[in-house]
């Protein structure tokens, strides 16, 4: 085994790190409030921050890094998956806005279009995605189709040059701020459930779409219920062939699990916690001297290292055209459970101070721990629950029977 970056990777790592350090405002790291990193877009507190984020993303796009692992002819850099992983790691470590790791369009839909889209579809969508000119949300879950995604009922019926959509999506993160969705829809009600669904790109502005906000555990408007009422979608927006949706879904989910890890965010959050422990007393003695605190932090540091190693392993397998079934699911399980574990440990270490919200002047570490305690609940549920990941590892990875 050899864990060293090659010269090109090392150079990219350093160039990117330097870029992030110089292009982001010095206090930017104290702004994002997601635990431990931004899944999509961090809620921002001021117009000024939005402007900083927007112009930063433009610079990333101009560098060609927004779509670095895409082929050159599609506006990418043709970089390897290891380099993509380096990009995701550094971006999340610096809590940078709008990395492809925070972008459904560039992280999931773009790569899917490159795999299964027609030439016309690629021409239509790829430049806009590559230039960060459109944002997307994932239209997967429905009230009765969560882990059992094959049970989606939203239907699309052919009518001339169009499909007519009717139904409802839920847990639609960021749908209210996005331009389009990547939606899985039933196109053949007679077929067996996994054989009658297809992918569509759906314009949020299409008549017949209405949204209702759903406020999450933190009180943030992150989710939506989205209703489709006779929504007409051009036929060319069906991606990857009619009724072939489930064949492609597994790949789309793999992209989601790999690109959205944000492992650098774990490291950054851990460093913040570590700094706090090193510089504060508890009950009259330095926190860093308390044996249970030392043991707990050592365990979290080890789990973060595991997350890193599984990320490199997954990326390396993709570069070799191997299918990282077990590895990408293991990465998802390990990293999301780590999000909870790290919040739990931080709460235990901080004791009663951990529960303080940001309104209190007594709250340590920007009140991130009380937020993280709540926010990390979603990690092991979204993008395939931990239980679904374990099914995948057992069935696809270890070959145990599907009964």
């Amino acid at each position: 085994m050899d864990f060293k970056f090659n010269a090109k990777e090392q150079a990219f790592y350093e160039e990117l790190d330097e870029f992030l350090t110089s292009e982001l405002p010095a206090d930017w790291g104290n702004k994002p409030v997601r635990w431990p990193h931004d899944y999509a877009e961090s809620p921002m507190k001021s117009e000024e921050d939005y402007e900083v984020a927007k112009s930063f993303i433009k610079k990333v796009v101009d560098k060609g890094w927004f779509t670095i692992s895409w082929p050159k002819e599609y506006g990418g850099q043709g970089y390897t998956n290891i380099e993509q992983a380096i990009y995701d790691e550094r971006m999340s470590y610096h809590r940078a806005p709008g990395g492809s790791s925070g972008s459904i369009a560039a992280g999931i839909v773009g790569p899917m279009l490159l795999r299964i889209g027609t030439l016309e579809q690629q021409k239509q969508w790829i430049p806009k995605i590559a230039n960060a000119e459109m944002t997307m949300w994932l239209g997967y879950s429905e009230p009765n189709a969560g882990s059992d995604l094959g049970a989606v009922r939203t239907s699309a019926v052919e009518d001339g040059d169009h499909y007519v959509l009717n139904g409802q999506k839920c847990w639609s993160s960021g749908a209210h701020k996005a331009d389009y969705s990547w939606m899985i829809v039933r196109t053949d009600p007679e077929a067996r459930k996994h054989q009658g669904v297809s992918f569509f790109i759906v314009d949020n502005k299409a008549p017949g779409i209405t949204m209702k906000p759903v406020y999450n555990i933190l009180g943030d408007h992150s989710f939506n219920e989205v209703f489709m009422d006779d929504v007409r979608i051009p036929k060319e927006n069906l991606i990857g062939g009619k009724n072939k949706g489930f064949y492609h879904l597994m790949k789309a989910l793999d992209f989601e699990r790999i690109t959205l890890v944000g492992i650098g965010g774990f490291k950054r959050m851990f460093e913040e916690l570590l700094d706090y422990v090193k510089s504060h007393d508890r009950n009259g003695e330095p926190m860093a001297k308390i044996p249970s605190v030392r043991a707990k932090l050592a365990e979290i540091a080890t789990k973060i290292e595991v997350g890193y190693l599984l990320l490199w392993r997954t990326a390396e397998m993709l570069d070799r055209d191997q299918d990282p079934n077990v590895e990408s699911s293991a990465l998802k399980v390990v990293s999301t459970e780590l999000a909870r574990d790290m919040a739990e440990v931080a709460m235990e270490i901080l004791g009663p101070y951990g529960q303080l919200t940001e309104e209190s002047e007594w709250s340590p570490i920007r009140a991130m721990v009380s937020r993280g305690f709540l926010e990390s609940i979603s990690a092991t549920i979204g993008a395939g629950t931990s239980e679904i990941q374990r099914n995948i590892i057992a069935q696809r990875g270890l070959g145990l029977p599907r009964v």
Partner: protein
Amino acid sequence: MNLDFNTEQKILSASAKDFLTKNCASHVVREARESAEVYPAALWKSMADMGWMGIAISERYGGTEGSVQDLTVLIEAMGAACVPVPFFTTVVVCGTALQLSSADKLKEKLLPAIAAGELVSSYALIEPGNTYGLNNIQTTAAAVEGGYTLSGTKLFVEYAQGADYFLTVANVEGAGLAVFMVDAKSSGISLKSMPTLDYSKQCELILDHVSVSNDYLLAIGDEAQSLLNAVEQVSAVAKCAEILGAIQLVLDISVTYAKDRTQFNQPIGGFQSIQHHCANMAVDVDSSRYLTGMAAWKVSQGLTATKEVSMAKSFASKVGVRICKLGHQIHGAISFCDEHDMHLFLRKSQAASMAFGDPEYHAEKVAQELGL
């Protein structure tokens, strides 16, 4: 980056597994535990014929000068077979100590014999009431003309009755710790059996005014500290590899069993509870594999590896036993029986988890490395 074995290591791993399947099936492990022989000499001899004892010894001493990574490839294969021979004590612990020391005359004498499989040695580091580290060494080495006189008691000395030499540590007044190789035939040495869970035939070693000549001193003072730290590092990585071999095998036999065993008219591997046990085992095995690989790589490259080694050892030590217990759970009642192999791995994993630092010991080292 390449997180697989290289080509030579793949060949080494395959040939080691093949050899051990043929020569060290579980009945060999059971026969060894019953035998009056300290370890199966025939198995030791054929391992030596394969060139295994010299894998990490430099060419000038008759070895093949492989890296610590190469060594872990072999150890991993041995972990999957619970090999009942003093390879770890001789090759890993004593071989590393000698190799890293500057006792040239002693190296000339002992390393070629180790590489040839003609010399067996063990280590005697833990003292009554102590566990790990070098903070409370009570054994004394009194300086005398031409050498030292050692007195003290050491515990947990594996395969002691079959050893020709013991690597040990003692306090020299005014000079600090000193590391010696002590000839097992020296007068004043006595052994008392202290059987443990994993059949490794451990002994209490009493040193009663044992004379050791200067030629058998490996290091003294700060050098002794750093030599033993380096030995601990390589030994801890090797124990990680041993655990890895054992738990990968436990995962494999558990998955196979879950596919075969039928209850309620279906293979039990179709039940989600069993699938999730297996998935958890697989995730922990993989995590341990890359942590161990990272540690072995850093040590092999001569990079600072304190944090990585301790992360790997604390993690492997914890998940090793956990995985074995899940293996027992999946196999059910038969795994509680002596005739089944599961308990061999449980014993091996528990013993390895406590050798050269348990999870708490290594977690504390990680904490120190984090600047706490």
